[in-house]
């Protein structure tokens, strides 16, 4: 029973990937991948998108800026959450914490977006950004004036993204820490290490690959998030934002927010399709690297058993 499911079913993911790439390639007609496409130029003619031109560089800066910053925050928080639920909390509260964290993953991104727009934005504009400017103003990126368009900008997008990827990275990190052989943890304790010393010197090094894989998959998620980011990032296409309060755009949120115009302007339409191809390639590369870490992890786990 079920043997017939074997090979044909295994092809489905491959077919989907192939179909997505092919359809995007056909739709774009491959006409715009020239120097201007990869550049940073930004020419916007109001009311005439077909006469405007955007280089993807602007959007890639916004994408990697927001994704990397949120990843730094999310990694720190997820690591703390994962360590406390696996190592420190008693079983019941530990499971409860995992459950609630997982639940956060199920909230639709548009809900996070509207929350960021309605609740976080005023708080950022009135409280957080002025205090950050006061305290950390001497750091590059934290000084300078607020954005003209209001509190919507890079920093707000970073916060919303952080909250959105925490459930994913936490769950993966938890698994990585759990997969550390119990023997090794006990061996550490048996030499007189405290629980924290075992975390630092045994669990984290042994789970290293799994943790990296979690970080990369979180990065992939952050790179591709469109709806919530589009709602809070402000969406102005500034080549290099002067500070974190400035509004930027990511590739994904630009595609999402310009889709309605693209139906009217064919050139913009092609541009968006090509942008999504680039995003696809970036996402595939990030995921492949993440999977490579997972494989190393499995290899280590099997060697750890020892044997002659």
């Amino acid at each position, binding site marked *: 029973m079920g043997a017939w499911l074997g090979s044909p079913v295994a092809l489905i993911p491959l077919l989907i990937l192939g179909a997505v790439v092919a359809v995007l390639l056909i739709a774009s007609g491959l006409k715009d991948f020239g120097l201007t496409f990869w550049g940073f130029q930004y020419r916007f003619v109001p009311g005439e998108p077909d006469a405007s031109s955007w280089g993807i560089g602007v959007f890639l800066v916004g994408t990697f800026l927001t994704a990397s910053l949120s990843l730094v925050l999310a990694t720190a928080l997820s690591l703390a959450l994962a360590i406390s639920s696996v190592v420190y909390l*008693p*079983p019941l509260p530990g499971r409860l914490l995992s459950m609630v964290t997982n639940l956060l993953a199920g909230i639709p991104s548009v809900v996070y977006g509207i929350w960021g727009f309605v609740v976080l934005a005023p708080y950022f504009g009135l409280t957080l950004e002025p205090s950050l400017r006061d305290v950390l103003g001497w750091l590059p990126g934290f000084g300078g004036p607020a954005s003209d368009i209001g509190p919507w900008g890079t920093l707000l997008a970073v916060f919303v993204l952080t909250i959105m990827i925490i459930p994913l990275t936490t769950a993966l990190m938890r698994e990585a820490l759990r997969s550390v*052989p119990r*023997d*090794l943890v*006990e*061996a*550490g*304790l*048996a*030499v*007189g*290490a*405290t629980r924290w*010393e075992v975390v630092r*010197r*045994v669990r984290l*090094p*042994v789970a290293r690959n799994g943790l990296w894989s979690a970080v990369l998959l979180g990065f992939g998620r952050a790179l591709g998030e469109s709806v919530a980011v589009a709602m809070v990032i402000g969406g102005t296409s500034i080549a290099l934002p002067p500070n974190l309060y400035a509004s930027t755009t990511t590739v994904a949120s630009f595609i999402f927010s310009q889709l309605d115009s693209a139906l009217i302007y064919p050139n913009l339409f092609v541009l968006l399709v090509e942008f999504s191809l680039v995003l696809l390639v970036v996402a595939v590369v990030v995921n492949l690297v993440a999977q490579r870490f997972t494989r190393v992890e499995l290899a*280590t786990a099997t*060697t*750890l*058993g*020892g*044997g*002659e």
Partner: protein
Amino acid sequence: MNERNDNLVPRGSSAGSSPLVCPKCGAPVAAAGTEAPLKCGRCGTPLSAGSPRAATSPIAAASEDRGEIILAIDRLSVLARNKPLISDVSLHIPVGKVTAIIGPSGCGKTTLLRSMNRMVELHHLQVKGTVRYLGQDIYGAQVNPVLVRRRIGMVFQRPTVFPTSVFENVAFGLRLDGESEDTVEKAVVSSLRRTGLWDEVKEALDRPALTLSGGQQQRLCIARALAVSPRVLLMDEPTSSLDPVATQRVEDLIFELKSDYTVVIVTHNMQQAARVADLTAFMYQGRLVEFDTTKRVFEQPKEKLTENYITGRFG
């Protein structure tokens, strides 16, 4: 080597000024010098013999006088959700001897071993009764389990090497103390020599420890345990994952170690117990059935159960 400090209560703790008190005359036993004495300086009472009021069930000590007791287990029960894994076990382990714990699978021998350095607590098990190391109850409220495990080391069924170099594996416990590089290196070399591993790995100290053979890995784990200068070494079926040649080497090592350490070994292999142990304890269904010299347990057991097990009628 770092100095042995047998004080299990963390320094600076209010009640921790002198927890080593002679059970007979009450004289505080100074932990001055490198090693705490095993006997009271005033009246000569062995420090470990346990206070007289402790109710001790009859098979606590082996039949002959074995000298000083380093680990005194009295009326110990370990429960998992109110279900006993071991019940009312009393066992006095003499210093400088190899004591084997044998018995069929599930008899509680590993639980008993893991109660001797508070490893049972990691599994949220409930412990009743006392385990005294040189007179101090290791489950005492003030006692720091980390210090217990420093004095009472452990080696596991499968080699538990960390994915670092050979050197760093042995140095693991010493690094926790922030010892100087010089001290660490001396201790690592001397531990590796002690386990007979030095000649095999001296050229490969920087290699990943996982590239060693299983037998070498297990001896590396023993070296790691010895590097923090314990008095007692608990071994939980240390050769069950090794081939006969590697097993032989570990057994030889156990024999050599008893001049400096007290060894408690759990084994399902009766021949192994007969080969390496001075004393043997037989457990069955969570209870200690018999504890005596290995020779007596194997040649003239007092209990019918022991005889049946030894002669292979069950187990």
